[in-house]
C-alpha cells in the first residue's frame, strides 16, 4: 500500500503550507475590503490545518490528537467567520462602506 509518507518528504508539505500562510498574511494585510481580509484569515487557518495534518501523518499517525486539533480549528474558524461577517454587515449598515481604511472613527 503506497502512501504519501514514502513518496513526498515532509518538508515539501511544510513549504506549501508556509507559502499558503504567507499568501493569506499578505491578503489580510493589503486588502481594503474587510471581506477580503477575512479571506486572508481563512487562507491562514487552512495553512495551519494543513501543517497539523502533515505533522500528524508523518510523525504520529497512530495518535488522534492531530486530527482532533484540526477539527477544533475548523470549528473556531466557522465561529470566527460568522461573527466577522455579522460585524461587516453591521458596519455596512451604519456607515455604508466595507473598506477598512474608511472606518476610522477611532483615529481621532
Amino acid at each position: 500500500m503506497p502512501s504519501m509518507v514514502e513518496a513526498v518528504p515532509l518538508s515539501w508539505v511544510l513549504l506549501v503550507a508556509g507559502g499558503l500562510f504567507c499568501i493569506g498574511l499578505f491578503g489580510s494585510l493589503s486588502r481594503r475590503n474587510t471581506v477580503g481580509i477575512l479571506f486572508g484569515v481563512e487562507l491562514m487557518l487552512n495553512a495551519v490545518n494543513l501543517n497539523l495534518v502533515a505533522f500528524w501523518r508523518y510523525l504520529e499517525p497512530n495518535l488522534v490528537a492531530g486530527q482532533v486539533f484540526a477539527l477544533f480549528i475548523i470549528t473556531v474558524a466557522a465561529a470566527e467567520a460568522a461573527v466577522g461577517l455579522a460585524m461587516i454587515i453591521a458596519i455596512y449598515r451604519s456607515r455604508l462602506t466595507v473598506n477598512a481604511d474608511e472606518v476610522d472613527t477611532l483615529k481621532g
Partner: protein
Amino acid sequence: MNIVIMVIFLVLSAFTLLAGVMVVTVKNIIHAALWLIASFFTVAAMYLLMEAEFLAIVQVLIYVGAISILILFAIMLTRHVTGEGVRQLYQRWWIALLVAAALFGLLIAPTVVNYSWNTVPPTAPDQAATISSSVQIGTAFMREYLLPFEIASVLLLVALIGAIVIAYEERSARRQVLTLAEEVALRQQRGASLLNAATPTAPDAQHTGSAPSQP
C-alpha cells in the same frame, strides 16, 4: 506508484498556491470568493492524499458548504460598494508583501531546509501501518476530548447568538417589522443623509416623498 503520488501532490500544491494568489490579488471580490472555494477544495484533496478522510469530508462540508455560502451572502449584502472600479489594495501594499516574504524567508525556509524531522520509520511489511481512523476520532471525542468538545459546542452557540445580535441590532431597536419596500425607502433616505453628511454641498435630491411609515 510513488511517482504518481508525488505528481498528484505537486499538481495539488501548485493549484493551491495559485488559488491563494488569485484570492488575494484578483479585483472582483466575487471571483476572489470563488477562488477561495477552489483552494478549500484542493486543501481537502491534500487531506485525502494524507489519508485523513474524515477531515477532508469535514473540510468540504464546513468550508465549502457553510463558510463560503456565508461569505457569498455577505458580499451580496454589501455588493455595490465592492465593485471593480474601487481600488482593492492599500497604496502601500508592497509593505505587506515585504512582511509576508520576510516571514517566509526568515522563519519557514530555513526551518524546512536545515531541520531533519524524525519521521516514523517505515513499518515492516508484515505489520500494517496503524493510522488513526474515523472510529478512533469519534471515540476520542467522547472520551479524552469530551470537555473541549462541549466547550466547542458552547462556543458555536455563543457565536450564533452573537452574530444574530450584531447583525440585527438596528432592526431590533426599531421594534417593528418593515415590509421590503419600507426597508428600501428607509435605506435610501439614510444613504442620502449619510452622503449629504459626507459632502455637504451635494444637492438634496433624494426626498421624493418616500417617507418611512414608522415613528
